[in-house]
């Protein structure tokens, strides 16, 4: 059948086919590379998180003017906490417990200036707290209250307040040594306790006391109305989950944005990748059209020959074969080259990522092979159908 191929291939347009080939190749490389890197970066993001603790996200409601005027509640209701707990990203949800009595702190030490302040306490179960200390226990017999304050408070004092007021800076260790008194006021009087700062939290921006202490103290002194907790802590094993940010925004909840960086990164990544995929799809679509048109042009240029071959007894399927073979050769080349180029890119990216100590696979993900072959098969099928239809039209 060499002669048949010789006759029909003569009428091809090399430039058309070349551009169709290059276009399809470009589209495929873009698509495959986009998906390859998406999978890589996604795994890097979640990998880094897995190595660390799961993310602890403290959520509060956004403060609005209604709350300032006392018209709307700032706390989370039982249902709202339930709703958060039901979200896919939330593995554990715990509301903060607040003090239900007035509390103030003061110092009674000659070595330190006198100091007096109204305070508040909050408590959550120990497993949510990033400070581990042997002194973090409440014993009513001893009557010493351990306190954890945010690292930021100390920083604010040491690097903001103290230098501007001519006060000495206080190292962490010294602060822990300061004894101060805590006055818990009940309805019928007050008691003073010793307090001690036992740690500084980077995770929780609140003045923490042990949960069992606060429960005990609320029982003993509490007389405020039971209020809804104003903050909840959520443990998320997958802080890259883009639905976290979406949920918070929908509900009008607030959190420290920094914590959700990877969730936002994931969203941005998805946006970029979907943009890439759309562009790739458009390129592939256009290239597919050029392919289709080039082959159709070839067929219509050969229409006289095809009619002649048909008269000689060639079935239109036999006549289609040279076109289909040409298509297959080009499509196989597109598949091969696009996988090759993508894997070269992946290798390059791998070495680059190593410089940033990111672990990115240097070989192609299996799914890419499947995708490339599947897409090629789809495009080829459509083209084969078009070839058969147009050769059949020319035959009698």
């Amino acid at each position: 059948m060499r002669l048949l191929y010789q006759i029909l291939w003569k009428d091809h347009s090399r430039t058309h086919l070349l551009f169709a080939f290059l276009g399809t190749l470009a589209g495929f490389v873009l698509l495959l590379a986009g998906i390859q890197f998406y999978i890589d970066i996604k795994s890097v993001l979640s990998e880094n998180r897995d190595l660390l603790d799961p993310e602890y996200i403290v959520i509060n409601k956004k403060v609005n003017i209604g709350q300032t005027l006392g018209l709307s509640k700032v706390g989370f209701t039982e249902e709202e906490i339930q709703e958060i707990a039901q979200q896919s990203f939330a593995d554990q949800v715990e509301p903060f417990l607040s003090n239900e009595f007035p509390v103030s702190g003061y110092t009674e030490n000659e070595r330190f200036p006198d100091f007096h302040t109204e305070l508040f306490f909050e408590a959550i179960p120990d497993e949510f707290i990033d400070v581990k200390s042997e002194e973090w226990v409440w014993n009513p017999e001893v009557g010493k209250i351990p306190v954890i304050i945010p690292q930021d408070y100390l920083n604010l004092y040491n690097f903001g307040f103290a230098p501007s007021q001519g006060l000495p800076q206080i190292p962490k260790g010294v602060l822990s040594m300061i004894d101060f008194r805590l006055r818990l006021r009940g309805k019928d009087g007050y008691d003073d306790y010793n307090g001690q700062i036992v740690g500084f939290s980077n995770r929780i921006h609140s003045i923490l006391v042990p949960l069992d202490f606060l429960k005990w103290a609320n029982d003993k002194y509490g007389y405020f109305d039971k209020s809804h907790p104003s903050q909840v802590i959520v443990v998320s094993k997958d802080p890259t989950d883009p639905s976290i940010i979406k949920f918070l925004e929908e509900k009008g909840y607030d959190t420290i944005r920094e914590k959700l960086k990877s969730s936002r990164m994931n969203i941005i990544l998805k946006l970029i990748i979907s943009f890439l995929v759309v562009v790739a799809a458009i390129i592939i679509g256009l290239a597919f059209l050029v392919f289709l048109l080039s082959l159709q042009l070839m067929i219509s240029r050969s229409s006289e020959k095809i009619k002649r071959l048909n008269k000689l007894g060639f079935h239109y399927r036999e006549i289609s074969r040279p076109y289909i073979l040409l298509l297959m050769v080009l499509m196989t080349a597109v598949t091969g080259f696009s996988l090759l180029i993508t894997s070269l890119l992946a290798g390059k990216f791998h070495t680059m990522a190593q410089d940033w100590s990111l672990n990115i696979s240097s070989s192609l993900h299996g799914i890419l092979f499947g995708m490339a072959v599947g897409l090629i098969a789809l495009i080829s099928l459509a083209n084969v159908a078009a070839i058969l239809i147009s050769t059949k039209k020319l035959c009698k």
Partner: protein
Amino acid sequence: MIFRFEQMIPLPMLEQDTSDSKVWEAEGLVLEQGKSYVVEAPSGRGKTSLLSVMYGIRTDYRGEVFLDNNKLKSFSWKDWSELRKNRLSMIFQGLELFDDLSTLENIQLKNRITGHVSTEKIEELAHALDMEPYLHRLAGILSFGQQQRVAIMRALAQPFDFLLADECFSHMDKENTLKAYALIQHECEIRKAGLVLTSLNETDLPGIDVSLKL
């Protein structure tokens, strides 16, 4: 292989006066394998149309044509393709050669799908028609008379039960015509095939069984 025509007439022929025709709208006209027919008529009377109907190229006709009692109109792509490869051969008035293939390649192109004859056999055919020197020349640069002989050779280089020859001697001199006709007759005899020959005026060809006036 038997063709039977029942009141068949190509649609374009309806405009003409065909009352004295032995073929158009004839009742039960039969063309049998093993016999040779000459269809005579001046131009424009539908000689090519008749052969085209028999070869499946034309389907715009009224009435019916049966091939071995099967309606031609019921034949599929595959049926026609098989018929043209194994049972029907045609020498086209327009020759239908590929100009950019050589004489030999033109014949082989068809022969490849039928696998009927060897290169030696093709050379034999060429020898019989004095075409041996032209086997490796491009068909496009041959004279029309030579091209006609290439078309004849191609038609003979395949199996057939019926050979349809459409004015295939029109550009040959008497001597070449007789040589070609003798070769056609010979090949038809070997295959016990039928022959339908159209011509403007080839009444003097020997061995014609039936002469049909269109």
